[in-house]
């Protein structure tokens, strides 16, 4: 048993630089894997809603027709389950924590008009093709029935 065991260390620490950094002046370096917040490449999103169903804290919502993806960053717990579930891998957990805000609100991401227009064109094309196919089938059915009647 002895006294002042820590004195040598305390004295050494007087001549060492501090282990903390002056944060706002010296920027913080995040490690590569840091889960700071969820980011989305919105133009890749297909609006399937897998992330909405996966989210344990119900922080996400998706509107397929309008091409929007909405996240309530105050509800999000950055668990990364949506990132795991996303079939197009357009979601990612990236470094950088949520910054303080004055009001609670949701962040909405909107697809660019070009991508939306392109998707609309594709949808219309697909609908047109489906209609043509339907009409063709109906015609064939009619012809078959006609043959049977003969």
């Amino acid at each position, binding site marked *: 048993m002895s006294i002042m*065991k820590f004195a040598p260390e305390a004295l050494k620490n007087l001549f060492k630089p501090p*282990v903390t950094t002056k944060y706002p002046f010296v920027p913080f370096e995040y*490690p590569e894997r840091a889960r700071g917040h969820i980011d989305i490449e919105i133009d890749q999103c297909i609006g399937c809603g897998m992330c909405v169903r996966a989210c344990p804290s119900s922080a996400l919502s998706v509107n397929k027709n309008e091409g929007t993806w909405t996240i309530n960053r105050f509800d999000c717990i950055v*668990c990364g389950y949506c990132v795991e579930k996303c079939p197009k891998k357009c979601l990612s957990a990236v470094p950088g924590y949520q910054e303080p805000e004055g009001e609670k609100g949701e962040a909405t991401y909107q697809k660019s008009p070009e991508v939306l227009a392109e998707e609309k064109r594709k949808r219309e094309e697909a609908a047109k093709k489906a209609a043509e196919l339907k009409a063709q089938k109906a015609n064939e059915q009619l012809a078959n029935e006609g043959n049977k009647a003969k």
Partner: protein
Amino acid sequence: MGKRSIIPYGPQHPVLPEPIHIDLVIEDERVIEAIPSVGFIHRGLESLVDKRDFNQMAYVAERTCGICSFQHGMGYCEAVEHIFGVDVPDRARYLRTIWAELGRMHSHLLWLGLLADGFGFENLFYQAWRVREKVLDMQEMTSGGRLIFSVNVIGGVIKDITDEQMQIILKTMDEVEEELKVLQKTFLEDYSVQSRLHGIGIITKEQAHDLGCAGPFARASGVKVDMRKRGYAAYGELDFEPIVSNAGDSYARCYCRMMEIYQSIDLIRQAIGKIPKDNTLATPVKGNPDGEYFMRVEQPRGEAVYYVKANGTPNLERMRIRTPTFANLPGLCEMLKNTELSDIGLLVLTIDPCISCTER
């Protein structure tokens, strides 16, 4: 016989990290009886099983506690894995062991700092947390979260520790060990620290056993109980013995936790040395669980019990968590009897209370 009076202690108190309320029956500054009450921060995590499916619950279970988060997630996942009957890949088992031991190290370092703060040694408090910061950096580097890992899924883990990261971990473990030796001199040998810890808050081996104490609290009283010896994750393939002290006082608890940090460093080195090179990290599970399982894991604070009952639907029928602090509360109340009022703050800390876990 002096005049009896009741002094309420907590839920807000400078020395307490978390809210627990104890009514102390005092007679001439000595405690005759301690009556605890908990329930200030109940969150109802267990009843969330009605609304979240069993995959989502892995993330919810991990958030039961910020300090032993990984082991909560692991306990839940192992329970559901046993129901499914899936084999976790070897590499995932070793990764879980490494992360669990990192969690134990930072929890014990946190406690050592709080203890130093409790007996008024601020300098030592900062030094303990400075060392802890290095462990937290390792956790953030490997899993992406400083405290909440979110790497456990049913069937394994979702992130790998690369070889370069393993080397960084080993290097940091060497540094932490060096710095711990400096801290150990003060924690275990310094006169002023010893005078605050020796012979205070004694729990005998019989009392610890009868009151069902768990973890370092029981081991400091000579009860050789450590759930890691059951061999879940990769513990069955690693060489270690539970650290036991026979004194049963606050100093023995400090000694046990200090030595367990060294043990964790050793276990991490063993695990990194033995980890198999394998690309599969998780075994996919199909369908919904059906059955029940009772999983026991050793958390930094002691034995945690996970009871999971599933009925073949995505939502579990019941999940129950028995946390180590809950098991240690009867021991705490017994320990507080016949102690000085001025020691209460320190003694409550020595069981390493985690009230958020307890109230779930």
